[in-house]
């Protein structure tokens, strides 16, 4: 019930503040249009780097949204409201991650094929692209709650957040972009996807605990 209440509230807040949802998508679109301009090359060159570009854009566009997971609540005091409600903190962190995934992770995942088309990603890669992002976007949201909880009382902590969680996200990028790359070469992506699944399970079990500990330390 508490989980549902917090998720529902966050989704509603994001839905009313539309920029939360479309900001990462606009960001991706702006960057992807620069590749043909900068590279000045045809479809083949673009297709070659497409797996990496699609994946890096999904990662970076999510990264810019992570700071606010806890920060808005900290600033308006509603963080105090649910922390003092007696709700367990790992559950609160998990609720926040779920809401973030619903409002950012899913749109980013569904938008990735559009970026793929613009980058001339080969046809056979789209299934694996979506699957890899389906596994990876929850990891972004879960690790995001940890990062956001760590910088909750720091002004302009966005850069620090990126520095903190980028190293944790790099294996995800390696396996995710690797999976898509394998499909462009006609190979099976199963190995990469399984490693990604492993990362997702690890994030799911540990991230809420880490985020809860960070919130406890930072609430003064």
């Amino acid at each position, binding site marked *: 019930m508490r989980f549902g209440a917090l998720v529902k509230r966050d989704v509603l*807040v994001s839905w009313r503040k539309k920029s939360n949802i479309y900001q990462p998508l606009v960001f991706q679109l702006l960057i992807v249009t620069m590749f043909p301009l900068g590279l000045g090359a045809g479809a083949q060159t673009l297709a070659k780097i497409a797996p990496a570009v699609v994946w890096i854009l999904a990662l970076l566009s999510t990264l810019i949204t992570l700071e606010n997971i806890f920060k808005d609540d900290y600033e308006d005091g*509603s963080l105090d409201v649910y922390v*003092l409600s007696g709700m367990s903190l790992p559950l609160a962190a998990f609720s926040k991650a779920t809401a973030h995934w619903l409002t950012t992770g899913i749109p980013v995942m569904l938008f990735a094929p559009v970026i793929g088309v613009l980058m001339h990603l080969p046809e056979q890669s789209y299934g694996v692209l979506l699957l890899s992002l389906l596994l990876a976007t929850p990891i972004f949201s879960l690790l995001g709650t940890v990062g956001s909880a760590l910088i909750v009382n720091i002004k302009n902590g966005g850069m620090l957040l990126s520095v903190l969680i980028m190293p944790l996200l790099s294996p995800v990028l390696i396996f995710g972009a690797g999976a898509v790359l394998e499909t462009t070469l006609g190979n099976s992506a199963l190995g990469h996807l399984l490693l990604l699944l492993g990362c997702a399970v690890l994030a799911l079990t540990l991230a809420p605990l880490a985020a809860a500990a960070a919130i*406890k330390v930072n609430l003064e």
Partner: protein
Amino acid sequence: MDAGQLAVIAGPNGSGKTTLLQALSGLSLLASGSRIYQGSSELSLWLKESHYLGHKLGNKGNLSCFENLQFVAQVNETSVTSSAISAVLEKAGLAGYEYQHANDLSAGQKKRLALSRLLLLNKIYWLLDEPFVNLDYAGCDWLYEIIEKHISQGGSVILTAHDQKKIHELAHHHITLEFPEEVHES
């Protein structure tokens, strides 16, 4: 503190009134000392019976007054009906503002919305940090009345206030925080 009592914390700016309240509320970790409620320092029991309202009001700006209270009730696992929420808003002088977003309210109305959580959750201990700030005369009278009613029903209130003569007269405990006499530099 016994049931049905009011404690007023006073002291100059920066003397630690908010810090004390936050420590009592369970928000901040205690550097020393302990928080004992019903003979136990177990935090979960205390959280169930107390409600803290600080300087940051805790209203979500782009949710309506109704949605704000609904969330607070749900996250505290208090089951309330929609008509109960409307009744609480009416008591807080926010009748007709149910579907207004909290951002669109005036500073005093935002404060009233935050204070209405006390009536909604009906917990035993109220910890209020400067509850009279931003309220108009009618609002101060209303707050004074609900505090008086709460303690007459066996609830307890700990609050910080400056020049609220009436509330100081009602108080059973007066706590005055002061700066240390001298600060030693080494």
